[in-house]
């Protein structure tokens, strides 16, 4: 019997949906007799307790402090929770917040630690986390021998957000003293992507070098519109200025975070491009080169001309 604690994150007093995803991840490894608690640091934590009281959550730990981004404070909260409750597992979403407090909290408290976890399971009583390595080229299973407490950050848009009304009790916890080394200046919104939402799209049709010419790009915008997809592209297309950079999928571009179907047409599948889409469950690749790297990660592959396939696809919509 042990406790699992999720560290929920808010932004300007609004709960981040990735926190509900972290609850799902934690709930998946909860064993009989375990308790699942969710800690939230905010100016009005009680106001967020209802949203966190979802099915499977036994307790919401409300830490009244500030809505500002204060990673040192959250790190201190983690330290206090470890000292007081000795949880077996702490989970938080792999966001900019977690990047700022989780590694330090893991080191200071001697915790087992893994970041950007995509899957979580039990092997007997042992916890096994799966994450990518070597720029997403391999998947690694990580266990934590000899660690009483493990801290994990979970990749966003991989776990379903937890739902279902729960009946968690709400406990107040005093904010621990923290040596605050940062100053919150305010939140800055990312550049406007002109309504293009690659990270939020479930269906992406992506084009690469095979499109050959700027004049040909328009027909794939048209096709994407017709089939209900968001048009994405590989780096050379955005580099040429043929499509906005907001449509570029890859290491220096966008992550196809919510994508369930990715149709790659004329995309060779460079390592940089794969970084942004390799995780998608259903990848369909169309390429004239049967040895293109994209086929090594595709569920379905078509060795053929992207224009011919696009034209045939159009006939079905």
């Amino acid at each position, binding site marked *: 019997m042990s406790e699992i604690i999720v560290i929920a994150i808010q932004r300007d007093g609004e709960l981040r949906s990735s926190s509900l995803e972290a609850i799902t991840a934690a709930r998946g490894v909860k064993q009989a007799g375990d308790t699942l608690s969710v800690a939230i640091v905010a100016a009005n934590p009680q106001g967020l307790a209802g949203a966190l009281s979802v099915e499977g959550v036994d307790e919401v730990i409300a830490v009244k402090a500030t809505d500002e981004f204060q990673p040192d404070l959250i790190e201190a909260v983690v330290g206090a929770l470890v000292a007081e409750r000795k949880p077996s597992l702490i989970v938080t979403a792999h966001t900019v917040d977690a990047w700022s407090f989780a590694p330090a909290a893991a080191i200071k408290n001697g915790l087992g630690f893994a970041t950007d976890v995509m899957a979580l399971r039990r092997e007997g009583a042992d916890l096994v986390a799966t994450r990518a390595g070597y720029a997403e080229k391999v998947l690694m299973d990580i266990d934590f021998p000899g660690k009483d407490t493990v801290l994990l950050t979970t990749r966003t848009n991989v776990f379903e957000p937890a739902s279902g009304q729960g009946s968690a009790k709400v406990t107040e916890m005093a904010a621990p003293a923290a040596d605050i080394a940062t100053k919150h200046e305010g939140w800055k919104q990312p550049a406007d992507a002109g309504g293009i939402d690659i990270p939020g799209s479930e269906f992406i049709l992506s084009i690469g070098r095979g499109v050959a010419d700027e004049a040909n790009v328009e*027909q794939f915008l048209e096709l994407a519109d017709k089939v209900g997809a968001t048009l994405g592209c590989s780096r050379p297309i955005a580099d040429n200025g043929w499509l906005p950079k907001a449509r570029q999928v890859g290491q220096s571009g966008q992550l196809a975070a919510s994508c369930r179907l990715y149709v790659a047409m004329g995309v060779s599948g460079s390592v940089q491009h794969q970084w942004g889409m390799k995780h998608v469950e259903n990848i369909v690749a169309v390429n004239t080169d049967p040895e293109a790297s994209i086929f090594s990660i595709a569920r379905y592959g078509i060795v053929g001309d992207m224009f011919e396939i696009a034209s045939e696809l159009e006939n079905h919509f």
Partner: protein
Amino acid sequence: MMTAVSDNRSLDGMCNGVALTARVLAVGDLYAALGIYSHVEPAVRSELETVILGTRRQRLIVAAAPYAPRNLLDALSLGADDGLALRLAKNTSTPASALRRLMAQCSDPRARRYLASHPNADAAILVDLSRDDAIEVQQAVAGNPATPGDVVARLAGIDDALIQRAIAASPAADAATLAKLWDLGDDWVKADIVAHPNCPATLLAIATSAPDVRLRRKLAANPMIDQSALERLLTDPDDSVRAAAVRNPAILGEEVDAMNEASARVRRLVARRPKLSADVIERLARDPDSWVRRWIARHPDMSAELLAELASSEEAEVRRGVARNSSCPAHLLVRLAADPAPWVQAGVALREDAPAEAISILLNTSDRDVLGALGRNRNTPAQRLVAIARHDDADVRRAIVFNPAAPREALVLLAADPYPLNRAMIVGHARLDDAAVADLLDDPEPQVRFSAARRLARHGNQPALKP
């Protein structure tokens, strides 16, 4: 050509090409050695081979690398084991001489299938492999565009759907082979046959009135179809057939002009045709379908008046089309440089012919796409290019790589860019001096070291290199 050097201590007195070779040998860097291999004299290559092919792991890496020099791949094929042979057979850079050797020494059907589909496989290799017992090898031979016509004709007699489909699309399939295949193949094979430029006239005639839409659609795409059949297909009840006919380059402009097309899909394709009359262009510029207007906005035969009209369109993508139109007059480019949509501005910023006034307006931007376009534009002031090379977005900075007029300061910044791909790409810039390239021989990224070494070896006149 460089010559060999084995004494690294005497670099100062030697030409710098020799210094590069000596340095690569001394450091033992596989990727730098690969970069210079093709540029040294044969006697030096054997020394480099000790660096490149020293371990089995390295040999496997090189055998699979499409950037590996052909002569090195050829050398690797000598006595290659199954693992090496498979990688060499898959590698699109492996030369025909190596493929012939692999064919003689390799019995693995997987490797033979790759040999049969290899782009460098010559006729002799394909003739031999066409007699292979494995059906997958025969399928690959049938699908190889280099397979000779007599082999294709022979394979057409094999009762295999994949072979038949491959032959129906083979450029070497003649009219007799296609006629024979017509009797054997399924509907998909027949559809490919009527799209084939060598399809016999009798089959084309059958397809013109075929009830199967697939056949008529494929026929409409055949560039060898006669004008009367094409005219008939332009009035086909199915809009996918009419769309295929409009796409056909064999169609004459007047026939398209004469169309009173109800389908927006077909009108969009008409708007993409290179030759259109002024009347048709005007009609399409005012088409109710916004995609038609987007296409026609890019048409090079648009008049200045119509371009001005579309430059005032409410739709940013139509205005972008005007900005990208090669016939767009300068005064419209100036107007579009101040467009409220950054994507339209970026369309102007990409143009080397944009007037100075337009570029000047665009310089105030903070938009990534506009900055990226300005970064590529040789008319962007040098100071601004340096600022772009310092931008916090790696994708914006990379635009400098594509600017032939980028100043040295911007190039050097890119050569020290934190994003490895940017460093790898700047190596190829003609204005990046060799001293800056030489620094990249120590880069942590193999791709960068390979590109730097190759660039220096190609120039053959390197500056002093760090010991």
